[in-house]
């Protein structure tokens, strides 16, 4: 498949970059989630007498996607936050037409010499955890602080009023459409979330949508170099991302350290300091319950994709099995503790 893509990608890039020819070398598929096919490659070309050798990433829509996500929103988010000087890869080009590579795609720079943590790896950050933890939660605070109107993202999907309800309704619809068997814990969570709405959002912000350990690149010195996977970005409550980031599934089996990085107190303090916002405990608890429910909805969809044979990526089976069981346990423990 890679051999098929490479010459077409080369032709596309030559046309887009306005050069006579581009050599696409080493095109290799890498892990990058089930919602996009991700490839690494080198693009070499001459322009104005100068030789270029660029390391790039291709993110192409798969034949069937786990969650329908808006690739132009993802591309625009990369663009907006890269411009702000945040650790985000530079986006190069977005192509919505199916012609060049059969499905829509975008290309961005590759951040090299970095590591991404596996969610099922215990203590991936080691001694770098405090340093990375400070950056991780501060960067999330800076995303929350950014004004969507000023960075050109005011028209992202989402609700400016009662975003909590918009989000619960969205993920309930996913479960309605994709569940293969009754889900009593997910249904109980949805009812609890609706009966106990959170306080109004302190502001409307850009929500990354999947901000977590495993979705950023860091170097050997413990510097976060790239926040990735903006495919579920939308407008909403700043606490939504914080609730997701500290969800136990991303803790690398250490319940004392959200995201496997720092204590809960430090995580919240770093976020509050960078965002200028408050993580009021009752509101944050609501968004933590929501985070696990959203997780369940995604894993239920993954199980459906796999079960129906639409997308046999083993990530879908793993999500629909391991992650679904994990979040059922988290929600059952938390909701029973509050007498839901």
């Amino acid at each position, binding site marked *: 498949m890679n051999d098929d893509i490479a010459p077409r990608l080369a032709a596309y890039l030559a046309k887009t970059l306005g050069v006579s020819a581009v050599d696409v070398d080493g095109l290799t598929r*890498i892990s990058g989630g089930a919602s996009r096919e991700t490839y690494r490659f080198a693009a070499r070309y001459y322009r104005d007498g100068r030789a270029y050798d660029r390391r790039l990433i291709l993110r192409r829509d798969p034949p069937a996607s786990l969650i329908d996500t808006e690739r132009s929103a993802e591309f625009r988010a990369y663009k907006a936050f890269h411009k702000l000087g945040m650790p985000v890869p530079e986006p190069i080009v977005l192509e919505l037409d199916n012609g060049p590579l059969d499905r829509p795609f975008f290309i961005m720079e590759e951040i090299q010499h970095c590591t991404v943590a596996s969610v099922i790896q215990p203590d991936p950050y080691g001694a770098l955890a405090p340093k990375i933890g400070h950056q991780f939660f501060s960067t999330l605070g800076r995303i929350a602080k950014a004004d969507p109107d000023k960075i050109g993202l005011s028209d992202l999907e989402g609700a400016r009023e009662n975003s909590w309800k918009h989000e619960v309704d969205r993920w309930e619809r996913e479960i309605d459409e994709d569940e293969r*068997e009754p889900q009593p814990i997910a249904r109980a969570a949805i009812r609890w979330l609706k009966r106990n709405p959170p306080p109004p959002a302190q502001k409307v912000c850009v929500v990354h949508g999947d901000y977590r350990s495993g979705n950023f690149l860091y170097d050997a010195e413990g510097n976060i170099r790239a926040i990735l996977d903006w495919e579920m970005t939308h407008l909403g409550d700043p606490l939504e991302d914080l609730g997701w980031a500290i969800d136990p599934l991303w803790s690398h089996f250490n319940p004392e350290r959200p995201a496997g990085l720092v204590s809960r107190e430090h995580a919240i303090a770093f976020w509050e300091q960078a965002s200028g916002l408050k993580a009021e405990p009752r509101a944050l608890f609501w968004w933590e319950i929501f985070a696990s429910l959203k997780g369940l909805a995604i894993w239920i969809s993954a199980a459906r994709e796999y079960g129906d044979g639409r997308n046999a990526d083993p990530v879908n089976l793993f999500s629909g099995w391991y992650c679904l069981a994990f979040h059922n346990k988290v929600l059952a423990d938390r909701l029973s503790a509050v007498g839901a």
Partner: protein
Amino acid sequence: MKPEVDKILETTAIQLLTQIAPELPAGYTQGSAGLIGILLGFCANEYENGAELRASENAELRNLLAELEAAVEDVRLCVKLGAVMGERDASLKISDLNYSNAQLKKLLIDVQTYLETRNDDQAKLARREIWAVLKASAKARLVKLPGM
């Protein structure tokens, strides 16, 4: 040779994880092969324990629903609960157990939703009983990763 499928799957999983995946080119292919190895490990456990887990859970759900009938005043729900009392799993085939499990959980969702509309002590106690069973079920269904 007995068809010790769990052992076959375990051995295959270990081969994939320790011998085959490391030899593949780094990237998606290698990552997927490793993940398939982990999934085969899940399958091994499911082969050995899947029927027991489902049969036990179905029995727990039937006991729970039978106890909940006393707390339910809704006639339509009482009829459904009464119908469940005498039911049994059609067989120990996973598909039959899954079918029963889905029917029982569907009814449990209805009963739990109904009980959440009431604030009396009987309803509160019944809700606690439901959560106790859901917690136990969620714990029993947790999937263990290799080496964890």
